[in-house]
């Protein structure tokens, strides 16, 4: 169970989502989603595959447009932003993809330097190298700087993916299935890393997962999604104390009994 996080500022909402709808053809993915993320808070969005969890954070990052509803991130309405304003906002949002999404043709060091070169062209090579060392040290993979992504394990790719987002010093982190496909020990390492990132870089995070161990270890709040809408929100114990819903019961049983 994650200990209480005193750094959360309950008066400062960094993300506010209201009445969000999104469909792909006849597939209605999101059906009226409401969500608030406060400064310094980690929210875990739990749900079965295909319930719209990843779509939600892609809309928050401005990768997808919603059909209806409002998405306010750091005081700005994301769907209404022009390309320049959206690019500036994205500097404050770190998005960790399920498989790391590392650039295959670049080494780990080049992967980390790439967003810096593009967004801070005046930064010297020495400054870049120092920042790369800091984030690689933060994820515990300093020795991989000259390796190609293909030479890394799944867990290492995810950690480098996290390092690449941290290098731009985001205020918000969006994690898409950070522990999917990893062994239990690596999962624990990733969970610890997510909490360290929250403390050390003072980030607020939305963590998409269907792994209850990850949810319990990293979430200050849990939001359970079913068929495109949240059916329950609260801290871990509050959400799972009443297992009257079939989905919540099955989730709990599968993760902690099997």
């Amino acid at each position: 169970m994650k200990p209480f996080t005193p750094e959360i500022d309950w008066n400062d909402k960094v993300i506010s989502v209201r009445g969000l709808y999104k469909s792909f053809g006849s597939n209605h993915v999101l059906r009226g989603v409401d969500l608030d993320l406060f400064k310094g808070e980690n929210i875990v969005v739990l749900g079965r595959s295909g319930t719209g969890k990843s779509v939600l954070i892609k809309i928050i990052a401005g990768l997808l447009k919603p059909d209806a509803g409002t998405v306010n991130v750091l005081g700005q309405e994301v769907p209404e932003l022009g390309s320049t304003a959206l690019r500036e906002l994205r500097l404050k949002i770190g998005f960790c993809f399920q498989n790391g999404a590392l650039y295959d043709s670049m080494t780990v060091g080049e992967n980390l330097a790439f967003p810096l070169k593009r967004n801070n062209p005046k930064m010297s090579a020495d400054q870049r190298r120092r920042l790369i060392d800091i984030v690689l040290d933060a994820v515990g993979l300093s020795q991989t700087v000259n390796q190609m992504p293909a030479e890394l394990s799944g867990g290492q790719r995810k950690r480098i993916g996290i390092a690449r987002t941290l290098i731009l010093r985001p205020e918000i982190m969006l994690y898409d299935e950070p522990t999917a496909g990893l062994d239990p020990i690596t999962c624990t390492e990733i969970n610890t890393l997510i909490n360290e990132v929250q403390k050390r870089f003072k980030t607020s995070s939305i963590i998409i997962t269907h792994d209850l161990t990850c949810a319990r270890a990293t979430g200050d709040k849990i939001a359970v999604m079913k068929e495109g809408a949240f059916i329950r929100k609260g801290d871990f114990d509050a959400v799972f104390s009443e297992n009257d819903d079939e989905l919540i019961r099955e989730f709990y049983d599968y993760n902690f009994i099997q």
Partner: protein
Amino acid sequence: MEPNDQPEKPLISSKVDAFFLSIYDIFRFISRFFREVLRPPLEVQEFIRQCFMVGYKSLALISLTGFITGLVFTKQSRPSLAEFGATSWLPSLISIAVIRALAPLVTALICAGKVGSSIGAELASMKVTEQIDAMEVSAINPFKYLVVTRILACTVCLPLLMSYTAVVGMMGSYLDIHLNEQTSFIAFMNKAFANISFLDLASSFFKSVCFGFTIGVVSCYQGFNATQGTTGVGKAANVSVVISMFLIFIEEVVIVQIVNSIR
């Protein structure tokens, strides 16, 4: 009523709608290219890297095919001309064929196969592994970095490769003529270029620019809009080649008609 529940009615039929929507999408893609190409910052390093990939990396294949095309075309034409005792016309016949049609077409078809498929597959695999989304969320413009540089590289390199193919093709032809008729290099060149006009050179150059642009746009569009995971990667590579080749032949017919009407 929830926004999701509004029924979707096709304007004509879903397939016809999809066809016109894809045409509209391609025009938007091309207009975005022209908007982005003029907007700083220019991705000079990536453009040079792409020129290296499109131009330099195609040289070996282009050399071989260009040389063989010139050689074989000369060998095939000789018996027909020999019947009329007109083998001395071979250099001018070959130069007209190579410069007006064969060099632009052979270069474009080779590049559509080699470069088009590689760009289509590369961008598609970046798309399905979310690398393009990763650029987007890192506040990098993937269209400018990936698409604009590749389309520009194809457009710039194709005319250069075409000129090279023409030279190599003429060398293949000279080899065969020299071995059979003992013609000197200077005599061959004098005869070869006697009937070549500025319009021939300009039209070939213009054709190559169009072919290069087509290969770049088609392969980047297919790769950038790939779906369906790894199947989509293969499909993007395949469709890039097929559509590029199809459009190259259509453009060839149209440009030849226009040039002949000017001539």
